[in-house]
């Protein structure tokens, strides 16, 4: 009986290509949407975590102002002496680097490229885990004198130098020129278009004198030693800074200390919300796809009530006709689901590489989307067919 129904069902699938195609299409779209959205969300989360890991897990980032970004304008910047005070008075630190930065257009030969110039000390490389592939770090004399030398990131190198070797060449930043003395090892692109290699590092004094025109620093990088307690260190630094910045007991901090773990948590939770949102959008498209499948199934069973009547009249049992319809629905749904999974996988891989996030295969989402879409196909193939298969043949034949 099963084999028989299978043969009849397959013949009907072939015979009604348009109807079959539409059913499959509905399922494909639903499955595709859910899998792609969720996969990309997962990939973005992973990319952010990986990127944060490249910063090192024991890095503190200090910024003036309570919020990261524009709000910090009201609060006074840090002084160079703040960095020295932290280094001298807090125990358990492995590096403290003050930094000031500015967006500048760098020019070499006929090429130019807008990038961020960070003025800092050699401690910066230790704190943020940068290594050099070529050249050297700053010499003591260069730092002290604020000489126009720089170490560039991989992106800046490729934009300005192409295939040329950069070390020893001079690039122009704003109105002064600057000798390239080193090249940073690439950290790779981060999520959301953040390119970590798009940097130029110079001695702090050179940036202060030639670009920002002040002796302030706007960021302090503090690397905490492996055995120290980060939370305790944070408290100590905060207390020290409050006295140095003359903050009264009742007032809030006018600076902020972030540790990389905290940043990671904030970013992953943001991305988790985004993934949920995308998932909700995807679920809606799955639902719409499901309604499409439902519609096609209902219409086709109504259309086919006469067919059911004919089959019953020549001696088919109600359950044989029903089995045929269920097999048709299962075959179409499974086919649609499989195509959806394949397309979603290919699409996710392509989109993931375009968005610079890793592709993360998730079997559970595939299974969920597949069974949801297929389930709708089967259920809405089954119930109307069952109603028709219970009619007297003559009633089914009269059906309009």
């Amino acid at each position, binding site marked *: 009986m099963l084999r*028989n129904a299978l043969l009849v069902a397959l013949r009907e699938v072939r015979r009604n290509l348009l109807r079959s195609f539409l059913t499959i299409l509905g399922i494909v779209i639903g499955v595709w949407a859910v899998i792609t959205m969720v996969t990309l969300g997962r990939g973005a989360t992973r990319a952010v975590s990986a990127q944060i890991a490249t910063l090192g897990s024991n890095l503190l980032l200090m910024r003036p102002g309570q919020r990261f970004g524009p709000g910090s304008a009201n609060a006074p910047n840090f002084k160079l002496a703040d960095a020295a005070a932290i280094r001298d008075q807090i125990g358990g630190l492995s590096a403290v680097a003050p930094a000031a930065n500015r967006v500048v257009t760098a020019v070499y030969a006929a090429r130019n490229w807008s990038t961020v110039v960070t003025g800092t000390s050699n401690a910066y490389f230790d704190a943020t885990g940068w290594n050099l592939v070529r050249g050297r770090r700053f010499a003591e004399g260069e730092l002290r004198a604020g000489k126009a030398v720089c170490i560039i990131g991989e992106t800046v190198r490729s934009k300005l130098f192409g295939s040329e070797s950069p070390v020893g060449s001079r690039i122009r930043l704003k109105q002064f020129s600057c000798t390239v003395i080193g090249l940073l090892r690439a950290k790779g692109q981060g999520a959301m278009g953040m390119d970590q290699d798009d940097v130029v590092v110079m001695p702090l004094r050179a940036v202060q004198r030639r670009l920002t025109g002040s002796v302030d620093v706007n960021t302090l990088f503090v690397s905490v030693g492996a055995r120290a307690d980060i939370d305790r260190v944070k408290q100590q630094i905060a207390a020290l800074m409050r006295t140095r910045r003359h903050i009264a007991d009742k007032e809030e901090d006018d600076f902020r200390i972030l540790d990389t773990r905290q940043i990671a948590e904030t970013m992953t939770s943001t991305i988790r919300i985004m993934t949920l949102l995308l998932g909700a959008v995807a679920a809606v498209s799955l639902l719409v796809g499901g309604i499409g499948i439902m519609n096609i199934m209902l219409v086709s069973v109504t259309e086919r009530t006469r067919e059911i009547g004919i089959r019953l009249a020549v001696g088919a049992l109600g359950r044989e006709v029903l089995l045929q319809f269920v097999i048709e629905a299962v075959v179409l749904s499974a086919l649609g689901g499989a195509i959806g999974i394949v397309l979603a996988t290919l699409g996710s891989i392509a989109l993931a590489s375009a968005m610079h996030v890793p592709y993360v295969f998730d079997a559970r989402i595939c299974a969920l989307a597949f069974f949801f879409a297929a389930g709708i196909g089967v259920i809405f193939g089954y119930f109307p067919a069952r109603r028709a298969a219970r009619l007297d043949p003559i009633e089914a034949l009269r059906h309009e």
Partner: protein
Amino acid sequence: MSSDAPQPLVALRGVTKTYGEGASALSALRGIDLDIAPGEFVAIMGPSGSGKSTAMNILGCLDTPTSGEHLFQGVHVERLSRTQRALLRRHYLGFVFQGYNLLARTSALENVELPLIYRRWPRTRRRAAALEALAAVGLVDWRAHRPSELSGGQQQRVAIARAIVTDPELLLADEPTGNLDSQRSHEIMALLAGLNRERGVTLVMVTHEAEMARYASRSVRFRDGLVEHDDAASHGGEQAA
């Protein structure tokens, strides 16, 4: 059976059929008694709307009477389950619909094969039998055509081929020559009469044409949902085989 008369193959006892309810109710059959013996060839005649098709549908186990008894080989069909009635249709009955009722988008050959699929015949045997039935109605060359590509008369002949392909015990044909020209009609009647004579197929046929009714051994006339005339009654059952 205690009676002297042979058991009828199929019998209707006081069968009524009412469509609809209340004021709009319509009595298509108002108490039909009909005994058909094995091997008979019965022609049912009567004006349009007299209930011929309704009675045929009940005889073909496609519809259930509102009241009365329907016996097939002594079995009360009206008491059988849906599945049992389907099995009766599958193994004993062949039906030619007034409106053909072929599967659309399906070739003539596959339409004729359909009853054999449900009889679980193997493919090659099925194919051979279907071709033979198509040959009998003169449509072998049209086997690959779909109903929409066939004339009304050709569709009717495909429907006949589908009904005879199983070699049924009882063949019910509702105006099988309604759409055929006179020559074709005679050919089809010769075919049906041959099945009745040579293979002992019991035949009940609705027709409007007296000329076609002459092929039958007995004629029954319907009027207003009742049997107005039955050869078997007036001739003292001489037709019983």
